[in-house]
C-alpha cells in the first residue's frame, strides 16, 4: 500500500503544479521545452529560469523531511548515450514525460497520446535488451 501511496501522492503534486502554472501563466509545464528555450538568450525566459530554480529547490526543501536524492548507479556510457538521446528525442519530438505525459495527455492531445505510447514501448524494449539480452544489470 505505502509502495503505491508515494507515487500517487507525488503524481497528484505534479498535476497540481502543472495546473498552477497553467492557471497563473497559461504555460505548459514541459521540462524539455523549458530547457530548450533556455538554450537561446531571448526575452520572456524569466519564468523559465524561475521554474528551473524551483525544480532544483524542491528536493532541497524536502531533504529537511527525510527525503533524499538517489545515488546514480548507471555507467558513464549509459548516462552520456541516454542524455544525448533524451535531449535530441524530446526536442525533435516536441516533448517528454512531463509535457506530453502529463500536460499533453491531460489535454487529451492525440499527438501526446501517440508520443507517450511510442516512448513507453521503445523504453521498455531498450530495458529488455540491456537487462535480458545483453545481461547488464
Amino acid at each position, binding site marked *: 500500500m505505502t509502495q503505491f501511496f508515494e507515487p500517487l501522492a507525488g503524481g497528484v503534486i*505534479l*498535476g497540481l503544479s502543472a495546473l498552477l502554472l497553467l492557471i497563473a501563466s497559461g504555460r505548459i509545464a514541459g521540462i524539455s521545452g523549458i530547457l530548450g528555450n533556455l538554450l537561446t538568450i531571448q526575452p520572456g525566459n524569466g519564468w523559465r529560469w524561475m521554474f528551473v530554480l524551483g525544480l532544483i529547490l524542491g528536493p532541497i526543501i524536502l531533504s529537511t523531511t527525510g527525503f533524499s536524492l538517489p545515488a546514480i548507479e548507471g555507467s558513464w556510457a549509459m548516462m552520456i548515450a541516454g542524455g544525448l538521446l533524451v535531449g535530441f528525442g524530446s526536442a525533435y519530438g516536441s516533448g517528454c514525460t512531463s509535457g506530453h505525459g502529463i500536460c499533453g495527455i491531460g489535454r487529451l492531445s492525440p499527438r501526446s497520446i501517440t508520443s507517450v505510447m511510442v516512448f513507453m514501448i521503445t523504453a521498455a524494449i531498450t530495458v529488455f535488451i540491456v537487462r535480458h539480452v545483453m545481461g547488464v544489470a
Partner: protein
Amino acid sequence: MNFLFALLAGIGFGMGLTISGMVDPQKVLGFLDVAGDWDASLAFVMGGALMVFIPGFQIVKKQLTSPLFEKSFFLPSANSIDKPLVIGAVLFGIGWGLSGICPGPAIANISGMEDKVFGFILAMLIGMIVARRINAK
C-alpha cells in the same frame, strides 16, 4: 507574479518528482522492466497527475478566458501526428530506457551533486541543440 508562480510550480514539480520516486533511475528502470521483476508503482505517478490535470484542464478551459497574469494561454497548436513527433519519441524512449532519467528528474537531481547527473545534463543539452538546429532548417 508570473515569476513567483513559476517558482512555486517548479518547487511543486521538484517535490512531486522526489516524493513519487521518479528521481531514482533504478526505480524508473524497474518500472520499465516489464519482463523482469516489474515494479508497477510508478504507473501511479502518471495516474495521480492525470487524475488532477484532466478534469482541471477542462474546468480551466470553461471558466477562464485568459490566465491570471498573462493576456492569453500558450498552448501547443500542432495537431498532426508527423514524423518528427514519432522519431523523437522513439529516440527519447531509447535514451530513457538506457539511463532511467528524463529531463525533469535530471534537473531535480542537481543538488545531489553526482558527476553522472551533470554528464547526463550536458549530453542532454547537446542533444537538444542538435535537434533545434535540424528543426530550424
